[in-house]
């Protein structure tokens, strides 16, 4: 009799899951008042639903292509709590397979990175190719893998692999839309952050990894559009004069436009009216062309000589966008973030921080931040050093910006543990009507002006759609 384990692709999704106390998952989301029960942060049953229904069926970011340059190079990464091996094949293609031996379930590859053209399980020496294909069990005459299952059936479960801007994404759902289709209109903006030059970006070493004792969605919902928190949680930057404005809006970094699509988000900062960057302050920007402005202050991690490449690579509308309202921070649903920003420094210079990151779930109340620092392949040693240093100093485990976020997320989690607390709500009630500024050339759902709750609410409706099977 076949095992009763339902393959993930056959898990019935056409209904709202019922939790152990009889509550329908739907009932934790108030669509009229735009409220989410804090139970979604702490309930272990909901967490299991996410592991089954969300992560194996969405595009997960796992590595940069330069981490596995040579044939046989591999790294270990995660899809939800499942560990996978991401490898470069001999023909240059990239493969990803579940790191679970099909014999007795041991961790097949036990090194975080390396080079191998085959993996031999330490337990009984079953051998596999990096793409997951089963090669054989030892002592062939004894037929130690038996004859009931074909070799094909004994292969490691493999994932679909696609790339964007040098980053490698995997999806275990064979029926899911392609990565490009999933990103949809967002690449119009994200290309301006991560795909700006002909040489493209490379990665600076392996990702930084650290652990936050909170649910992954505390970071996930914040990165889906919470620019507002900068004014309070990161107020120390204003106190130090590192974030200020001389524009008509006196709250620095709040002017701009948000673009969203199916739970993904990007924020385009207004550097024309507000220009919180020192280099642009006091300048009559409106009299300058987009290219003149980009030459005066190239985008983060770029030098003046790279500006010509931007003009060649992008449409005039995108060049204009990069000069006036550069996309600088955003997220891909459900658990991927990206940041490309300048940090004005006390000595008047600019640091650049450029990072891809993912929140890897490690239980309902724990997640790991995996954060890659990336830089233009063609950057000068000085520019590369600037990105390397200031990405670490601002974001990530020792970053003075992110350390305040990583302190507040566990406190939200603490709130969600109490019997009263988990019945409280996350509220998304500041709404701005959807509307494009005049002449806005970019695609997606557009929300202009002070950052409101629209895109974060869209994160939750997308989330609910995935968990209830409506998406």
């Amino acid at each position, binding site marked *: 009799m076949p095992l009763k384990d339902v393959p993930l692709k056959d898990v019935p999704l056409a209904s709202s899951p019922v939790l152990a106390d009889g509550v329908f998952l739907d009932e934790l989301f108030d669509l009229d008042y735009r409220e989410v029960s804090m139970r979604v942060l702490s309930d272990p049953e909901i967490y299991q639903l996410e592991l089954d229904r969300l992560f194996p069926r969405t595009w997960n970011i796992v590595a940069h292509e330069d981490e596995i340059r040579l044939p046989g190079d591999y790294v270990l990464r995660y899809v939800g709590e499942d560990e996978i091996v991401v490898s470069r094949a001999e023909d240059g293609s990239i493969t990803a397979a579940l790191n679970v031996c099909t014999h007795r379930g041991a961790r097949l590859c*036990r*090194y*975080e*990175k*390396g080079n191998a053209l085959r993996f031999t399980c330490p337990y009984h020496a079953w051998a596999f190719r990096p793409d997951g294909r089963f090669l054989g069990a030892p002592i062939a005459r004894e037929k130690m893998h038996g004859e009931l299952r074909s070799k094909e059936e004994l292969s490691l479960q493999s994932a679909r692999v696609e790339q964007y801007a040098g980053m490698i994404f995997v999806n275990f759902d064979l029926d899911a839309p392609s990565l490009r289709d999933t990103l949809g209109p967002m690449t119009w903006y994200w290309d301006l952050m991560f795909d700006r030059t002909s040489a493209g970006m490379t990665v*600076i*070493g*392996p*990702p*930084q*990894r*650290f*652990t*936050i*004792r909170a649910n992954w969605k505390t970071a996930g919902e914040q990165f889906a559009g919470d620019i507002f928190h900068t004014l*309070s*949680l*990161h*107020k*120390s930057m204003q*106190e*130090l004069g590192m974030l200020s404005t001389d524009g008509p809006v006196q709250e620095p970094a709040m002017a701009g436009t948000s673009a969203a699509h199916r739970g993904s988000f990007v924020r385009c900062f207004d550097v024309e009216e507000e220009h919180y960057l020192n280099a642009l302050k006091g300048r009559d920007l409106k009299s300058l062309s987009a290219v003149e402005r980009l030459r005066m202050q190239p985008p983060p991690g770029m030098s003046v000589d790279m500006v010509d490449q931007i003009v060649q690579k992008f449409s005039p509308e995108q060049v204009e966008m990069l000069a006036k309202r550069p996309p600088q921070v955003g997220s891909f649903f459900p658990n991927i973030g990206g940041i490309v920003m300048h940090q004005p*420094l*006390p*000595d008047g210079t600019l640091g650049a921080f450029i990072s891809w990151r993912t929140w890897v779930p490690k239980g309902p109340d724990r997640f*790991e931040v995996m954060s890659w*620092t990336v830089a233009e392949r063609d950057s000068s040693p000085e520019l590369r050093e600037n990105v*390397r*240093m200031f990405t*670490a*100093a601002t974001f*990530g*485990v*020792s*970053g*003075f910006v*992110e*350390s*305040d976020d*990583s*302190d*507040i*997320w*566990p406190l939200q989690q603490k709130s969600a543990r109490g019997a009263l607390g988990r019945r409280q709500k996350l509220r998304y009630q500041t709404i701005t009507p959807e509307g494009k500024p005049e002449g806005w050339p970019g695609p997606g759902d557009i929300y202009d002006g002070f950052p409101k709750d629209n895109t974060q609410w869209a994160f939750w409706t997308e989330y609910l759609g995935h968990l209830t099977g409506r998406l």
Partner: protein
Amino acid sequence: MPTADTPYKEATGRRVRASEPLHGDIVEHLEDEAQLLDEDDLMGWIQLLAEDLVYRAPIRCFTERGSGSPFDEEAAHFEENAMTIFLKVMRLTQTSSAWAENPASRTRRIVSNVRVHETDVDGEYRVDSSILLLRSRYDDTHYDLLSGRRVDCLRRADSGFRLASRTIYFDQTALGVSNLAVYL
């Protein structure tokens, strides 16, 4: 003999024996430094740093035995100089909203296994030590625990020593802490 996996260059200068007064002076310096940090006296601590300080903690991976250093040469958990440390200390001590350390954590630094070697530069010493940091936040009974090896360059100054460089080789690959808003 160091193996190929040894992540740090072994000291080549003369070993300063534990019985020599200099060794005692350096141990006292490290203990005083730990005391300043444990007591959250960051302004006192930065007086011990050299202007050309390099302070870093490289990222580590778990790799096959014999395959070389598990530490990356570029990617780091800490990547600081005197300017970034000064900036962070100003943030922690002079602003009202450095929430990562407000209220302050209670921390305890256990410094041990101190080994001192002379270097090619007169008055500069290579100092290796083991560090264990315990950090307690709010009323949480969980401790943040970080252990590692520190490789320092201490430079003799008019009074005492200044830290010219510190590299922290953490034992964890994925750090089990939310942030490094405290120093080791």
